[in-house]
């Protein structure tokens, strides 16, 4: 009997064969291990993502939700509250408002890359991407330097889940609590000494004359820090992995960095780190011969939709000339990732600078150790050998 268990280490390592079975044989599948239905075809995921009235986010969006978080963040509220919350923070993440960050991001990337000069082998994550992402986030949010390593470690831990209990383990909850305490400290500091920055504005913002709920301010800030570090870092490690594994693609982007944006889009399609998110049904839905009931949870398997040959020809081939528009690497619809522009800008600059120092590399170790997570997928360590 076919099983799809998103807590299984085998799925962390390689979900793609199971996704193909889901798409072809069980396009509306109940997974008892996950306690969710799983939608795996591109068209079904796009439809669900558009229909927030039916596929609600208000009971959480992570496959394994963090306690007391649902209802207090962008990803865990529905319109119209969601739209108003998003309106408060979106401005800071729009492309045209990020131009002033390009030079600081380049300086951060150059410094991190230069530290690798002359090395024969290194861990891309520990020695480049995690240093880069945490400094970029600190620059973008104006956070005080000094706690970078701790913030990064806790951000990576809080998104994980336990493969045995299929829940958050005590260390994951502790990391989440740590991050809330850290965010609370930053919010208190900004309220005491407001600056012209995102957290200052957000922590004192009002919607329709009402101050934001304290839990909204705290958990939205916590989520921004988590996403800025873990999601950006996770994607960078997948992009590096793809370029290490696909020599010809790497040689092309190294020779002509203007191809980097196309390679980034193909990586977002091919194996985005944000593999699966969750919704909760507000009414019964009949789909592919199944009846999903109001109150049931539904997993939107973006990583599977991105490999659906009903949408993308030859989907298992990594092809940087593909230009896969409409991919689900950032999700889609009202909850599409807030950070698309800063992520694209940061990754492009990071790899431009990284390739100046390390133009040729391959994977140093196989198999990889994968992060245990029902939502995200990226390696814990990515050893690269310089060639």
């Amino acid at each position, binding site marked *: 009997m076919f099983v799809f268990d998103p807590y299984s280490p085998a799925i962390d390592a390689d979900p793609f064969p199971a996704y193909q079975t889901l798409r072809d044989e069980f396009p509306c599948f109940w997974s008892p291990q996950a306690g969710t239905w799983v939608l795996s075809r*591109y*068209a079904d995921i*796009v*439809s669900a*993502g*558009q*229909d927030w009235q039916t596929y609600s986010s208000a009971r959480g969006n992570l496959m394994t939700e963090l306690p007391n978080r649902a209802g207090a963040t962008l990803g865990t509220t529905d319109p119209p509250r969601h*739209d108003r919350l*998003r*309106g408060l923070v*979106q401005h800071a*993440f*729009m*492309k*045209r408002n990020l131009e002033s960050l390009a030079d600081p991001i380049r300086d951060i990337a150059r410094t991190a890359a230069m530290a690798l000069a002359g090395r024969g082998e290194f861990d891309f994550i520990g020695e480049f991407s995690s240093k880069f992402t945490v400094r970029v986030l600190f620059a973008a949010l104006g956070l005080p330097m000094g706690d970078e390593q701790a913030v990064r470690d806790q951000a990576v831990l809080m998104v994980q889940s336990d493969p045995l209990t299929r829940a958050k383990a005590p260390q994951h909850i502790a990391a989440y609590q740590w991050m809330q305490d850290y965010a609370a400290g930053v919010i208190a500091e900004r309220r005491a000494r407001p600056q012209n920055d995102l957290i200052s504005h957000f922590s004192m913002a009002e919607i329709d004359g009402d101050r934001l709920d304290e839990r909204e301010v705290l958990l939205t800030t916590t989520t921004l820090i988590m996403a800025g570090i873990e999601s950006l870092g996770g994607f960078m490690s997948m992009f590096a992995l793809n370029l290490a594994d696909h020599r010809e693609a790497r040689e092309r982007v190294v020779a002509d960095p203007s191809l980097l944006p196309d390679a980034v889009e193909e990586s977002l399609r091919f194996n985005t780190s944000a593999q699966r998110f969750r919704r909760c049904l507000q009414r019964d839905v009949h789909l592919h011969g199944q009846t999903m009931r109001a109150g049931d949870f539904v997993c939107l398997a973006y990583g599977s939709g991105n490999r659906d040959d009903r*949408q993308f020809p030859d989907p298992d081939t990594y092809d940087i000339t593909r230009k896969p*528009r*409409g991919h689900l690497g*950032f*999700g*889609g*619809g*009202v*909850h*599409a*990732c*807030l950070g*698309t*522009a800063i992520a694209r800008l940061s990754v492009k600059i990071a790899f431009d600078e990284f390739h100046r120092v390390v133009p040729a590399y391959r994977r140093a170790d196989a198999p990889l150790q994968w992060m245990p997570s029902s939502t995200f997928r990226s390696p814990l360590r990515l050893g690269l050998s310089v060639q």
Partner: protein
Amino acid sequence: MALITYIEPSGQSVSVEVADGWSLMQGATAGGVDGILGECGGSCACATCHCYVDPTRMAELPPPGEAELAMLEAVAAERRPNSRLACQLKASAALAGLVLRLPDVQE
């Protein structure tokens, strides 16, 4: 389903069957139409799915909300009275046959 016709910047016309509930931006990007980007994924945050709606059918569309009006101020090509963001227009049978003209630039 609604058959939507997109006129690309080159003048080439492409017709796509867009599923009910999908935005006309998603219909275009999934259907391989040129001249539309949808960089933000449909969250009304980038103004790169700007389109000119057939003026004779403007009145049939739900009017733009606050967020769309704000983003329309940021479109790269000329903003006209029939400018809309395709991510905010949802396909339904009522829109069958709608023609959208795409601008020369989106960013």
